[in-house]
């Protein structure tokens, strides 16, 4: 078996060191080694977006990133967005807008939306739908999710 490698990355603002095999995905290491189980495994082939995290500020599907590629990178997961036990406004909007049912897709949606609103604080509905097209939801029919993102953008005005 290929030797484990020691990787250092800034995860949710904290420097973390972990050992992983080259064949392990970032998703696997986040969930199994670092106990950050927010990112979910839906499809494990890049199609569903449930495993979305931010890698140096860009949303990526962590099932298609090798953990060894994260050396020196800045990673943000859903665990890092609520501060001091307080939900972030975006999370509050998903909650209040009932933008989730089973919740499996939610961490992924929250991370992509976070990146979207950072770049474009007032997206149109079309922009929201286009930018979130890589996140699939089996339950909601998407409208409530789009409304929650709009509410979060409104709140930021």
């Amino acid at each position: 078996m290929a030797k484990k490698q020691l990787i250092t990355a800034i995860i949710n603002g904290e420097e973390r060191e972990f050992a992983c095999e080259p064949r392990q995905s970032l998703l696997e290491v986040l969930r199994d080694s670092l106990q950050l189980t927010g990112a979910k495994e839906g499809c494990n082939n890049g199609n569903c977006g449930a495993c979305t995290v931010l890698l140096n500020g860009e949303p990526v599907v962590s099932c298609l990133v090798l953990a060894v590629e994260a050396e020196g990178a800045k990673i943000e997961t859903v665990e890092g967005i609520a501060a001091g036990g307080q939900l972030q406004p975006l999370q509050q909007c998903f909650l209040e807008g009932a933008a989730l049912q089973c919740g499996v897709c939610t961490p992924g949606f929250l991370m992509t939306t976070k990146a979207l609103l950072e770049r474009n604080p007032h997206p149109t509905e079309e922009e929201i739908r286009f930018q979130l097209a890589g996140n699939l939801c089996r339950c909601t029919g998407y409208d409530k999710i789009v409304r929650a993102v709009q509410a979060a953008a409104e709140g930021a005005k």
Partner: protein
Amino acid sequence: MQDFDYAAPISTNEAVRLLADPAQKAVVLAGGTDILVLLRERRRRATLVVDVKKIAELNELAMTAEGGLFLGAAVPCSRIYREATIAEKYSALTDAVKIIGGWQIQSRATVGGNLCNASPAADSIPPLAIYDAVAEIAGPSGRRQMPVAEFCSGVGKNVLARGELLVAIIFPPTPVHSGAAYQRFIPRNEMDIAVASAASYVELDDKGAIRKARIVLGAVAPTTVRATKAEEALIGQQPSDALFIKAGELAQLAASPIDDMRGTVEYRKHLCGVLTRRTLAIAVERAAANKK
């Protein structure tokens, strides 16, 4: 996932040395959006994965001294579509990189990987072909260049020999009064692969007539196809809807698609006509606006 070693060389020479190592079965990793899926599903085997994202020249994205574009093979799509100069001068490339997968895929996926993966439905290849882009290749016996249009040799096959690495794609300058566009047809708005696609490029003369035209179709043959008959019909003509319809009809004849769950032969041919017509109209509009 199958077991493999990982290396992230910082120079092209080192990458080539690793790829040529007879003791290894090495594969290149750029954005990983194709290769990690293939390795996980065991449709490809590897003992060594060579990550090329740390090599400086593969990360370069800049205008060349001649006024063309140097696109490093490891530059992700999202970096390409954020460049205003590229959107202006190579708009068909921007059209394509904006629709490759969703945002998460675009953050990682590269045009180099899209080309090397050689899928008939790859969105970046028709645009590369209409711009007459050139692939710069490094290998154990030095460097070579070849037209992108000759780079793919079949479904999932390219001309790279063992140890060879795609370094960059180099675009010639685009003249004034030139314009281009790329479109594909997919059953939903985003996140699907092309049933058929077309890229069109035109150059207009002082009187607004078409001086040069290139039309390349995707997803309707094992590799991209050039619709030469349609191109010829455009030369010397004033752009008009009737002319674009005629070009679309001629373009259909160049397509030799397959029947599959995404569409029948007839449907795909029809789409070639529609997409040719539409991309020509946009290309002409962009050419007319391009006065610099």
